[in-house]
């Protein structure tokens, strides 16, 4: 619009002034608060935690502000390294199970008429408005030594005595899966729902059977959804400590528990910071891979 007036510098000046009034002030007023909030409470803390991870721990659990790679070396110690590997293993296991269980479920919902599908999605969401710790506590009640599962197993004669489920990794994984399943189902649902049906028909017309169509058409086209699910399940699972606190009874420790302890009883901030940086790096790596073939804005987060 203003391009035609370019040769007239006076008009340009006036235009600039008007632009400031019309654009800059409102932009500042509207995008300003959120930008300020994000910089103050996300950018700065994140940079600071990276900085702290390169400091060292003083004798009294204070932070000594001198550059050192000490905390990262500590992460390589057998005790911590084992926890990291175990957390990764549990997170991978949880993610794979969520995908295997969630994909057919998402497919089932996506094939329903729109109205029914919306209701089915709502039915997934409702349990998640119940306090998450209380839902975990329920699994404890179901699986405890004299709980219904053990009674049933003994009644059927499958076991003689009660099996200890409580405070095991197995129960923690069950808790993780039931807590994470919706985050796996929702992105996959929306990518399956967007799938163009005519591709499937074309594939079938050209003689492909169901399995081939699924492998060659459905799976590749819904891959962005699958990858969103992987990110939304894997990353939180890696950092969560409430599930292992509730179902592991303090005996099952993951990265999240270790980080929390460094800022509580153990007081080794640089080590906790280094573990946090590890989580940030893993997150960024996955996001980078994701952005290679999909836009970050397409990630169904809500």
């Amino acid at each position, binding site marked *: 619009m203003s391009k035609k007036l370019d040769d007239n510098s006076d008009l340009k000046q006036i235009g600039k002034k008007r632009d400031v009034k019309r654009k800059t002030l*409102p932009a500042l*007023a509207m*995008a300003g608060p*959120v930008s300020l*909030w994000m910089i103050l409470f*996300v950018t700065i803390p994140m940079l600071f*935690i990276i900085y702290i991870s390169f400091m060292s721990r003083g004798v009294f659990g204070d932070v000594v502000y001198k550059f050192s790679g000490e905390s990262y070396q500590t992460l390589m110690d057998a005790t911590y390294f084992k926890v990291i590997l175990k957390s990764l293993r549990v997170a991978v296991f949880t993610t794979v199970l969520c995908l295997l269980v969630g994909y057919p479920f998402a497919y089932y919902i996506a094939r329903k008429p729109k109205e029914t599908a919306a209701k089915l999605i709502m039915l997934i969401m409702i349990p998640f408005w119940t306090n998450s710790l*209380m839902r975990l506590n*329920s699994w404890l009640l179901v699986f405890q030594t004299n709980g219904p599962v053990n009674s049933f197993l003994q009644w059927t004669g499958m076991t003689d005595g009660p099996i200890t489920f409580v405070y095991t990794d197995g129960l923690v994984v069950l808790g993780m899966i039931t807590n994470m399943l919706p985050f796996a189902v929702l992105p996959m649902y929306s990518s399956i729902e967007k799938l163009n049906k005519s591709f499937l028909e074309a594939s079938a017309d050209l003689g492909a059977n169901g399995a081939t169509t699924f492998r060659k058409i459905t799976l590749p086209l819904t891959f962005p959804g699958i990858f969103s699910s992987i990110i939304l399940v894997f990353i939180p699972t890696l950092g969560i400590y409430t599930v292992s606190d*509730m179902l592991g009874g303090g005996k099952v420790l993951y990265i999240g528990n270790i980080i929390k302890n460094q800022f509580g009883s153990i007081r080794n901030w640089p080590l906790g910071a280094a573990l946090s940086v590890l989580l940030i790096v893993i997150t960024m790596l996955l996001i980078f891979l994701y952005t290679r073939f999909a836009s970050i804005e397409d990630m169904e987060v809500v």
Partner: protein
Amino acid sequence: MAVSKVQKKKKAFSILGNVYAVIIYAILYIPVAVMMMFSFNDQRYNYYWNGFTTKWYGKLFENSALIGSLWYSLIIAVLATLISVLIGTIGALGLKRFEFKGRKFINNMLYIPIIVPEIVLAVALLIIFLNIGTALGMGTILIGHCTFCIPYAIVTIKGRISGDDNSLEEASMDLGANRIQTFIRVTLPSIMPGVMSAAFLSFTLSIDDVVMSNMLAGAKQSTLPVLILSMNKAGVTPDVNALTTIMILVIVAAMILNNIIKSALKKRQNKEVAI
């Protein structure tokens, strides 16, 4: 023959699908059902079922620690919702409608609280607060909650804003309305469903949050989820089950109301368009 075979196969698949869905829903709803059931358990601690009682629904109000943490959680959730929706609504509009330096940076920053594990952001904030000597308490928890609610609010509301098309707003201003009048009478109604979803989401995220609240709480008072986490070792008492049962019923009722209002708004909008 061939057709009936295909149909049979299809039917078998649909039955299989239904059975599968029922199993998944059962797994999702069992914890909720068990939680509700044990709110009627006639025992001091929830270890096993000991008979039916409704006494916990009265007794929970005598548990001052429980009620105290409930109020604390509610106040934080309401404030976090108000702040997040306010900043989120104008922020979503600002980020969508205006080009400015650093916009991409802020957009990327918004994804950090959504994607990076919560514990990381929580300890990062904790270090900052302790370093500048802020006393931990309601204020710090509130900041923590807003920091993850604002991004969710913005993502939710942004989806409602119609691209770059602001012809309605321009028409409103051409007709003599000022910016604020335009915002209240034109822009806000059009994104209202998104704003309401954002409010609902912020509230549920805040009231259920454990990690931020746990890391950023002061010594004196904790939120309800943090209290439950600390009860875990000794066993959760049935009055907590009673309270969380009431809460889920209220939230589901609010959600249904929210949907009714949303569809009413939609109908009214459609009517106005028709006129």
